[in-house]
């Protein structure tokens, strides 16, 4: 990784002694009170090391997430222990567990409520692809609903695997590539623990891309609306509501 850390330029350094500035806007007479860097780099550095996760825990993966934040694995080591259950206070959405159709609008709403910049980790195969629930009520990957930055494989992922995912995300945030890709919509999510060739394109423009009777995930370029029109609510079963 070639990301430059904020470079430190010290003026009149006195070893072991740091003095505060005399007043607002006035330089300190001695000590390491400023440094020169690019604003972006400093901001990205801060963001990557103080992720505030919002666990959207639904199922088994949430139990493993609890393990990750509890004493043994201690997510605080990565600056990401300030778990916030309000989406407005969080910048990292960790979707841990199966998301079913009934929960899909809720997930979308939670994501929309988060302020930019925000990142999404899809924890576990259910959140990533629907897992082994190829079924009538399960979202086949949350990337049908929200964009995903890091997929973490496993059912459920081990705590080490999730920590790996968080570290990968930190690298992406620090490099700034993520923000640039986001802006130009050329974003390709990374997958932790799986073959990168098998990646499924993730952006679905924030629209719920799944429609009635749809069997596969949308490919890139296909808009969700055209699909919606094509096969809106075909009559299946006996039509009883």
């Amino acid at each position, binding site marked *: 990784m070639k990301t430059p850390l904020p470079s430190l330029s010290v003026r009149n350094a006195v070893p072991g002694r740091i003095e505060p500035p005399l007043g607002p806007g006035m330089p300190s007479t001695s000590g390491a009170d400023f440094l020169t860097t690019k604003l972006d780099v400093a901001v990205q550095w801060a963001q990557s090391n103080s992720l505030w996760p919002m666990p*959207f*825990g*639904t*199922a*088994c993966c*949430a*139990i*493993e997430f*609890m*393990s990750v934040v*509890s*004493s*043994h694995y201690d997510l605080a080591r990565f600056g990401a222990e300030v778990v916030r*259950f309000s989406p407005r206070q969080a910048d990292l959405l960790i979707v841990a*567990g*199966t998301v*079913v*159709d*009934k*929960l*899909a*609008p*809720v*997930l979308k*709403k*939670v994501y929309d409520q988060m302020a930019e910049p925000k990142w999404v980790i899809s924890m576990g195969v*259910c959140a990533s692809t629907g897992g*082994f*629930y*190829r*079924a*009538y*009520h*399960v979202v086949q990957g949350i990337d049908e609903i929200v964009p995903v930055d890091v997929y973490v494989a496993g*059912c*459920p992922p*081990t705590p080490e695997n999730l920590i790996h995912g968080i570290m990968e995300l930190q690298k992406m945030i620090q490099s700034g590539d993520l923000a640039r890709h986001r802006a130009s919509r050329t974003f390709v999510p990374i997958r932790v623990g799986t073959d990168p060739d098998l990646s499924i394109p993730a952006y679905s423009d924030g629209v*719920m891309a*799944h*429609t*009635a*009777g*749809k*069997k596969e995930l949308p490919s890139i370029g296909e808009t969700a609306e055209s699909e*919606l029109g094509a096969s809106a*609510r075909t*009559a*299946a*079963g*006996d*039509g*009883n*509501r």
Partner: protein
Amino acid sequence: MSTTLRGLDRSTVSFGPLLEQKLKGRVTVEERPGFDIPTLVTDAGTLKEAALFLRDDPAAAYDLFLDLASVDRSKLPGHVEGGPGGRFQANYILYSTKRNEHLRLRVNLPEKDPAAPSLTGVWPAANWFEREAWDLMGIRFDGHPNLQRLLTHNGFVGHALRKDYDKGQRWLCTEEDLLQTELAAKTDDPADMFETMTLNFGPSHPTTHGTLRIVMRVDGERIVAAESECGYLHRCFEKMSETHTWVQVIPYTDRLNYCSPMINGNGYALAVEKMLGIDVPQRAKAARTVLNEFSRIMDHLVCIGANLVDLGALTNFWYAFQPREEIYGLLEACCGARLTSSYARIGGLAKDLPENFVEWSRSLLPTIRDRVADVDGLITKNKIAWKRLRGTGVVTKEQALAWGFTGPCLRASGVAYDVRKDNPYEMYGDVDFDVPIATEGDNFARYIVRIEEIRQSMRIIEQILAKFPKGPINSDDYRVILPPKEMVYNEMEGLIYHFKLVFEGVKVPAGEIYSYTEGANGELGFSLVSDGSGFPYRVKVRPPCFPLFAAYEKIIKGGMVSDAVATLGLLNIIAGELDR
């Protein structure tokens, strides 16, 4: 199915003559094989009368409504369209705490407009079970107070567990399809001088520990009315089971109650073993019992630890989770996975235990004991804990029975029903342990029962470890267990068994069973139907959480919002099991 209907068999149900006298000829006893529970068959017209008899007559006294397992028989061999018996079956599973007996009350329903009278008036616990049967199977229950979809969303079309429903057919769910302000409208009383407001709670809320939703009408901090809703984790376990072989269902069972997956796998394997008529070796039984109890400890620790976080006592969470991590180490050594173990197999276990299993297990007990003592010391005599837990979320004995409670929550209300004690399975009959009960029925009772159960589980583990059997881990019945490699390579028979098992899977003879074990939250029942092929025809789980959460809205009514949080945590609702 090869069962035949006969006249009343006095040996099957003790109250047979009385039943014959009361409901002459309208209720028959179905002959069942020894592994299943006694079964009565009636018709929709007599159902309510029969139910009242079974509940009220002291000779029957079925006070606990456990489950409603519906079956679509249209693809069963021998089923004739429009023939006698009808397409659908509603099987009510009942239990008598006084006589320690299970019973299945079966009603056959026609293909066209299957309808039965609602039994919510007889057993209030039937409420959600009937809604579920309506939602997934399309059986209508006349007289039901609120026959709406429960597990799927309102945009769903059709009934998913019918055999003609495609397992992958999804329906778009929009925000409008979720329960919104019906409750607000319902409870809006114009005469109410004080303003009440609607409070939405979940499905993404930290104290629900999953995906539960409650809509409350609150007057200040006091809950005037509440409506709970589930289905936010309905991931189609039962439909998925029908499309997998008998053994492939085991990973799915792990994800029912994901806090104690071993127990689920064991319950399922046990049910299938009973149908196959095979017995597992002592060593497997001992291993299963030990791992069950470790799972129960983990489950209770999660329940207590996570609930105390909600009450503001975060320290206990760290204490409760440390022994869990250490138990995970043992499970990982056994099966390679921490949480979702897939360790149980029909006829034994996936592989043999690690060499140092006994010593390792024994070495875990002091940590558990110490950490539980820490939590106990911090909470049990803590003034704040008493104020938060004592006298809140009270469920009386009568209510607990009527609402279909089982497990720690029932025992906290004073009913000493524990499957491990009353109908021992695996090695529970050989060990000495107590069933802790409390009589208050409040949150503190539920907490203290769980703490004591952890200690009793450790007692069970210690006793079994002291005389841990040696020998094979798996049954030598090669209809269900792969024969050893030497046999496959050297003997024709071994090769045939291997081939059949790999290509066709375990073949369970046609039949039906209700098998039950003690899950961490209560009676975990499996109603299985086999058509003789390599796939389960119908798998219905009796999730212990389901009646608990169904009663939640009634428990919290009249209390404070903060007490509702404590109550929810100590009922220990696990969404995976609740919604399946």
